[in-house]
């Protein structure tokens, strides 16, 4: 995989903020200043570029590598997610600001454990056949079939049974109430495909041989080793047809090539993963660089709780000693904010006033080396060795690792960097054996929908994918369980924010920065989200010519 892919693990893209008001950043920051008020501590990023004025012909969109499969149950990494979400539709839909709204179906609750999905009237697949409850049940059920090997398997295990009531109504019984399941219904795991087309294809579903049958505004065109092209569906069921006639996706692993392609116009746009050279594009006349809300958190993940970071005071000390401002300026080209909470404000898909109030009440993280030294002494960890996993070949990882190293050394820890080639860095995340001997490493986790609880659960629950060394905190676990069964969004947000506060106190992982999503777009184009939502929901329907 290409270098920019690793960035995904790490520091990458995007960012932040939050949209309480949801207008342009410049506008919002300007007005409070004029009225003599201090600027709000949560920045407001517009999750959309301006609407398009007209149609365009062919658009070429860059991904960091080629797409390997279109099977939605494998749409987990950036390239597959970007393409699948452009042409397929999920049961529910994530809006550019993270809110969850009806997608192919509307959701009502018969009781807290019983969900009723009603397929929207007139919804059809590209071949004109209607989307039925049977198609929805089959598509969701694939996640639970071991032979399919869905990467979303654990997120759908809450389903107890699914029963089509009539042609367009599906009843889902859950094992226990789970309101966060709405987020999964708005993820790529809940993309609806046509059963009649797909069922016989077996493993070739989503491959160049088998293709795919979805319901979105673009359908699959040519797909070969060079390009994967989407052509607009002229009879799209869901309203206006797309403004771009064709989108060609190309895999561009090399950053210099990507830069050249964007500057010459051969590449029309791309969502980037913390491009180190973003500053050069900011000053280029051919493209506009947008910054939007992100779900991601640049993180120092704790890999070993038996080492120096096993003591919470040592983790607090390390966090306190990090010079985040320097890291954001130097490592992230200024495209991030400091983490008052572990979850990025871009993840506030509901209960925003609650989350914002929590954010306002929390202190801005300040570097305080003297206090950190005191803490590390109390922890009895001074002089111990901290081993940090890194890769000198991935600049984003290396800068993050160096920021942590500087902090650790400033409080009297001895630091060893274990640097591996780029292609091996991902093993640190996926393979416990590769992680052996490490105390921690830079990562870039993000939830699958705008739901901070989803992110927290990765680190806090026993089987969480980012819970590298059996971190246990009954209080946070209880909070997450409680939130899961709380229907009222604001009440749920209160519970989740409390978990977030405890997270910052216990630090099962140390947040480094909350990056912003970056979108690089040719000046002649507009009409797409600037936010992280491009991985999860149709983002290209409005892509068209700028005025």
């Amino acid at each position, binding site marked *: 995989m290409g270098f920019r892919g690793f960035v*995904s693990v790490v520091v990458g893209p995007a960012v932040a903020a939050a949209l309480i008001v949801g207008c342009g950043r410049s506008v919002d920051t300007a007005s409070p200043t004029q009225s003599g008020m201090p600027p709000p501590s949560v920045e407001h990023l517009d999750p959309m570029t301006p609407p398009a004025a007209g149609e365009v012909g062919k658009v070429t969109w860059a991904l960091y590598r080629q797409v390997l499969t279109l099977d939605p149950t494998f749409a987990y990494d950036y*390239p597959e997610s970007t393409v699948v979400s452009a042409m397929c539709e999920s049961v529910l839909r994530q809006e550019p600001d993270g809110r969850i709204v009806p997608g192919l179906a509307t959701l009502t609750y018969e009781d807290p454990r019983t969900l009723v999905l009603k397929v929207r009237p007139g919804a059809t697949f590209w071949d004109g056949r209607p989307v039925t409850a049977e198609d929805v049940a089959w598509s969701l059920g694939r996640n639970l079939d071991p032979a399919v090997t869905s990467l979303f398997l654990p997120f759908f295990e809450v389903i107890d049974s699914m029963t089509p009531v009539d042609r367009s109504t599906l009843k889902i019984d859950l094992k226990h109430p789970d309101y966060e399941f709405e987020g999964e219904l708005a993820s790529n795991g809940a993309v609806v495909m046509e059963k009649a087309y797909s069922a016989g294809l077996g493993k070739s579903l989503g491959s160049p*041989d088998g293709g795919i049958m979805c319901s979105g505004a673009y359908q699959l065109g040519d797909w070969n080793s*060079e390009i994967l092209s989407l052509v607009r569906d002229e009879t799209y069921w869901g309203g206006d047809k797309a403004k771009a006639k064709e989108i060609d996706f190309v895999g561009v692993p*090399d950053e210099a*090539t990507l830069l050249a392609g964007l500057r010459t116009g051969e590449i029309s746009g791309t969502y980037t993963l913390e491009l180190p050279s973003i500053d050069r594009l900011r000053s280029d006349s051919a493209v506009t660089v947008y910054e939007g809300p992100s779900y991601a958190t640049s993180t120092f993940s704790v890999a070993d709780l038996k080492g120096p970071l096993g003591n919470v005071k040592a983790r607090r000390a390390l966090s306190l000693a990090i010079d985040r401002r320097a890291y954001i300026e130097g490592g992230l080209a200024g495209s991030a904010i400091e983490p008052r909470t572990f979850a990025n404000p871009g993840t506030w898909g509901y209960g925003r006033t609650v989350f914002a109030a929590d954010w306002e009440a929390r202190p801005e993280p300040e570097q305080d080396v003297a206090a950190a030294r005191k803490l590390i002494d109390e922890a009895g960890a001074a002089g111990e060795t901290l081993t940090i996993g890194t890769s000198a070949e991935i600049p984003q990882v290396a800068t993050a690792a160096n920021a942590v190293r500087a902090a650790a050394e400033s409080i009297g820890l001895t630091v060893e960097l274990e640097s591996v080639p780029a292609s091996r860095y991902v*093993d640190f*995340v996926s393979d416990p054996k590769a992680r052996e001997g490490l105390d921690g490493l830079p990562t870039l*986790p993000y939830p699958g929908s705008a739901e901070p609880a989803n992110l927290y659960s990765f680190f806090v629950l026993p089987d969480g994918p980012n819970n590298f060394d059996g971190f246990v905190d009954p209080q946070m676990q209880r909070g997450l369980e409680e939130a899961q069964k709380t229907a009222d969004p604001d009440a749920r947000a209160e519970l989740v924010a409390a978990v977030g506060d405890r997270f910052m106190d216990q630090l099962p992982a140390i947040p480094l920065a909350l990056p912003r999503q970056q979108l690089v777009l040719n000046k002649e184009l507009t009409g797409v989200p600037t936010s992280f939502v491009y991985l999860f929901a149709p983002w290209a329907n409005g892509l068209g010519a700028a005025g």
Partner: protein
Amino acid sequence: MLRFVLGRLAILLGALFASSIIIFLAVQIAPGDPVTTLSGGRSLPPAALENLRDQYHLNEGLLAQYWHWMTGLIHGDLGHSIVLNQSVASAIAERLPVTLELVLFAGFLIAVGGIGLGLLAGLRRGILDDAIVLGTAVAAAIPGFLAAVVLISVFSVGLGWLPALGAGSGVVGRFEHLVLPAAALALSGVAVVARITRVSVREESEKEHVETALARGMSNQKVIRRHVLRNAAIPITIVTGITITSLVALAAVVETAFSLQGLGAALVQAASDKDIALVQGIALVLVAAFLIGNTVVDLLYGFLDPRVSLGARAE
């Protein structure tokens, strides 16, 4: 002749088998996992990860995978790429044309440009000779990836004359798209061939029989054609042939830099994904191409130098 061909075939098969074992061992030692490619390094839930490994037999180890591959190969099946979810044969078939065209294009540049410049410098002393010597000394030291970056920034971004990435479509489109990659791939080869050509021509020109022929009043042109070029052709052909053959291996770097979906780029990717069937399949093609290239050079050698008999060389 028949003996030569049969001998070559035996060498080819032996080399392919040996390389498949070496590659197998190398891939086994190298880190990586097809699953991490699919996840992009985003943490996967342990349950999903385990299920995936079971389904793809990744827990069986590479030896089992190699055995599956070998038995398939004997039945004429190159196997299935886990990561691309595609048969290796069709994955190669899709990527072979670009690599072949790129290598042939670059080979043409090396043959024409390298030999041409070398002859020019070798036959005419003076400022042109000095310029070529200096220029090729610099060019020989420029690796393909650096040449690619410079060419893209000058001719694509700066001047806007040629496209920076992709392979294009149609004859004209393909040509346009391959000019810069071929130039980047050929650059150091042109320089090497030019320098060898120049030296060979010089050496031959200074030989006694050449001076004798000139002294006996033979025309300059005739001497160059008959005595200088004919003899210099042998080292020139060999170096040119080997240089061009080695492009097969160097193409990977240039393909990546220009986002060309060729065999080389796919091989690098497959190796880091531990996609064993694809690695073996592509390596098979590259090793075969390399050996065929060398065989062509040998044939030319025999043709240029009558003292060399092909049958004898094969023994």
